[in-house]
């Protein structure tokens, strides 16, 4: 028989206002095995913990039940307190009478009754608890960064700086991400490339950083400290080690009509290409959808002109495998597709562009060499209308429910840059709210209005109609003037909502991390653990976690790096002892558990058994690797013979809790 102590917390008035804590302590005191039952104002305080410690010693307790807040808050506190008093940490159970009771009920009588029931369930469980000892597992001192945008680059640089090897996996032929496509950055208006490319070069020159460009993560196995990752290096049909990036092949390639994705399809590139001048690695890539040699075996010009013989038409996708201690996700964002917003005529009119397209139109390396011209007839636009919140802040059926956060600022930037460079151009911005929280952000927006005379109009554009004379009729409401406007515009720029990259969801499945309904990765705690995922060893960097501007992205990237470094510094980490184990005598070798295990922790072994008739038989039985098992419990549910059980959450413990609740 266990000797159990029950400790009921008031949590100030958080619990005590709705639950009669004295009655709970009194009722639980009569449960079998309970030798002491007390209440206290703040059990998590030092004096509260001392109460637990002293009681353990004084009453020789073998089990402790704390009726308090969620175990996510203070389970660790009380486990450590118990350990300090010489009791095994895993003999402590928490009955959550705050989140699951006092906070969600109003009536004191029913809340008290429920608190007692939850307490009884915990007592029933402690009766079956057994001391557990946590093992240790080694940490591989290497990190993987998925995504090579500014977030991934910054994270990799910081981790490398701390002395650890880092691999960057980037799906495109070059690192740089969205920031490489941006012309100027707010609120300082400095050139994006001027601040990004030094970091790209630094990443390529750092001997601790290994860039796998044009590659994808194909498979992830393992757990914190010991991930095994398969990386697919897609065939680029060019030997990376030989190519010098001279660019002769891209000049001579006869297939010149390939939409250039770096310039948002506003101009063309060749079938063999280097995305942009500062690309890292500066290596050519052949686009197999357009290359005539790969499609029908006729051409081979690039191979003939290449002086180092880097072209290899027979190259195939390659899978490499590597072990990592930590993984940082930095998969970034994309602007949404605007196909379903017919009213803005994006698909009908070349002069209706997205903001990212405008970045390219204004960039020196863009389709017009930095002169802002209308895509349709290459003339100077004299009236430009910006539309905010296209697809952001929508009902779920109409678009994204969230604010994309960056649009107000980049629109102010665009408006200002255009007025600065082309003062004869009238610029209108239709806004619902101007959201500029951030250092020097509102001042920036005010400059656009007061200094650059950009016309900010409170209201939304309802209809965009391309006209036969090449102009565009923009019909909108001006809510403050209470009138409907028609603006005869030359160009319309849409601030499209941003969404997580499409590769994020399959990646989340591979990493067994959580996402929200918008496919943004979910952080472990929205306030206190903003750069960690709920899965140990997986960290979040940049816009894959939520819309972010560059300063915020870089801050989060460094924070994620710091967390990863904290993990990589350790030689070993303490494992969770609440892992599955199989009762070999009951196991029938059906493989059900092996199939459901998300961590690959279960293998099957042939084992010799002494049978009742004194013969030996060889049977196939499940075996759990405790270092890999994360204690999710999927196998215990799947096991048809009841052989699989989970330490600390055994079937008998759970049933005892259910019995106590139903009694």
């Amino acid at each position: 028989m266990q000797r159990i102590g029950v400790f009921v917390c008031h949590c100030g008035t958080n619990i005590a206002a709705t639950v009669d804590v004295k009655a709970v302590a009194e009722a639980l005191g009569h449960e079998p095995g309970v030798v002491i039952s007390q209440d206290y104002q703040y059990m998590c305080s030092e004096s509260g913990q001392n109460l637990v410690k002293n009681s353990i010693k004084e009453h020789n307790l073998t089990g402790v039940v704390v009726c308090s807040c969620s175990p996510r808050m203070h389970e660790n506190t009380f486990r450590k307190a118990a350990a300090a008093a010489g009791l095994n940490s895993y003999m402590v159970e928490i009955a959550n009478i705050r989140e699951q009771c006092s906070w969600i009920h109003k009536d004191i009588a029913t809340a008290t009754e429920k608190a007692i029931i939850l307490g009884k369930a915990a007592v029933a469980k402690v009766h079956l608890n057994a001391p557990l000892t946590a093992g240790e597992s080694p940490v591989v001192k290497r990190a993987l960064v998925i995504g090579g945008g500014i977030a991934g680059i910054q994270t990799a640089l910081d981790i490398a700086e701390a002395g650890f090897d880092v691999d960057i996996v980037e799906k495109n032929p070059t690192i740089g991400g969205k920031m490489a496509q941006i012309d100027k950055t707010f609120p300082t208006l400095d050139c994006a490339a001027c601040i990004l490319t030094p970091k790209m070069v630094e990443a390529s020159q750092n001997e601790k950083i290994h860039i796998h460009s044009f590659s994808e993560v194909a498979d992830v196995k393992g757990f914190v400290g010991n991930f095994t990752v398969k990386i697919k290096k897609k065939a680029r049909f060019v030997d990376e080690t030989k190519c010098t990036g001279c660019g002769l092949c891209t000049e001579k390639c006869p297939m010149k009509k390939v939409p250039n994705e770096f310039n948002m399809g506003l101009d063309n590139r060749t079938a063999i290409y280097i995305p942009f001048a500062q690309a890292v690695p500066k290596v050519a890539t052949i686009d197999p959808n357009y290359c005539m040699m790969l499609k029908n075996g006729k051409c081979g010009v690039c191979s003939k002109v290449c002086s180092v013989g880097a072209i290899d038409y027979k190259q195939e996708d390659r899978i490499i495998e590597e072990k990592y201690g930590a993984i940082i996700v930095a998969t970034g964002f994309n602007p949404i597709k605007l196909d379903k917003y017919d009213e803005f005529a994006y698909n009908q009119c070349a002069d209706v562009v997205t903001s990212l397209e405008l970045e390219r139109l204004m960039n020196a390396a863009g389709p017009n060499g930095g002169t802002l011209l209308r895509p349709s007839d290459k003339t100077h636009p004299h009236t430009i209308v910006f539309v905010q919140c296209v697809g952001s802040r929508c009902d779920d059926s109409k678009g994204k429910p969230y604010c994309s956060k960056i649009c107000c600022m980049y629109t102010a930037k665009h408006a200002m840059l255009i007025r600065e460079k082309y003062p004869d151009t009238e610029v209108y911005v239709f806004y619902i709210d101007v959201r500029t929280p951030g250092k020097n952000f509102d001042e920036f927006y005010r400059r656009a209005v007061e200094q650059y005379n950009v016309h900010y109009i409170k209201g939304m554009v309802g209809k965009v109609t391309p006209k036969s004379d090449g102009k565009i009729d923009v019909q909108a409401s001006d809510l403050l003037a209470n009138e409907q406007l028609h603006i005869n515009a030359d160009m319309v720029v849409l601030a499209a909502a941003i969404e997580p990259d499409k590769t994020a969801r399959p990646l989340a499945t591979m990493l067994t991390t959580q996402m929200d309904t918008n496919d943004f990765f979910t952080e472990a705690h929205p306030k206190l653990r903003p750069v960690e995922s709920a899965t140990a060893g997986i960290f979040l960097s940049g816009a894959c976690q939520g819309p972010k501007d560059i300063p915020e992205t870089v801050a989060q990237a460094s924070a994620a790096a710091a967390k990863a470094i904290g993990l990589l510094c350790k030689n070993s980490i303490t494992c969770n002892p609440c892992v599955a184990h199989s009762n070999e005598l009951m196991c029938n070798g059906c493989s059900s558990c092996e199939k459901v295990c998300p961590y690959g922790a279960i293998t099957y072994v042939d084992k010799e058994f002494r049978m009742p008739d004194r013969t030996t038989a060889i049977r196939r039985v499940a075996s759990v690797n405790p270092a890999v098992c994360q204690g999710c419990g999927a196998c215990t549910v799947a096991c048809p013979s009841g052989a699989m059980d989970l330490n600390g959450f055994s079937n008998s413990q759970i049933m005892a809790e259910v019995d106590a609740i139903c009694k």
Partner: protein
Amino acid sequence: MNKNLQEQIIRSSGVNVLKCMRCGKCSGTCPSYGEMEYHPHQFVYMVERGEIEPLLKSESLYKCLTCFACVERCPRNVEPAKVVEAVRLAAVRQQGNNHLTPAQIPDMLDDDLPQQAIVTAFRKYTK
């Protein structure tokens, strides 16, 4: 503020006016905007404030074409045209209020107007 009328409009339209984020896209897209005393976004806002009587008296009710452009394009799915329709119905259903008398007809006639339209108008605007 007329709570009863407000509730009636909200119930019969099925519209949650609190979803409106006041972007004004409904009024930006409305083809009848110039004809209307109260514009689509004002309909939604005035129902939210319970100011139904001015709407009931307004000619705007009969200027809405029910083209549903505002319903189609509202980012928040508020469906302003349904609010207009609900107020229109409330006006039509008011006891003893005729919005059209036979004496007004001769002035309104033109050669292109089908007879059926007159019958429909009578059904809609008289009690």
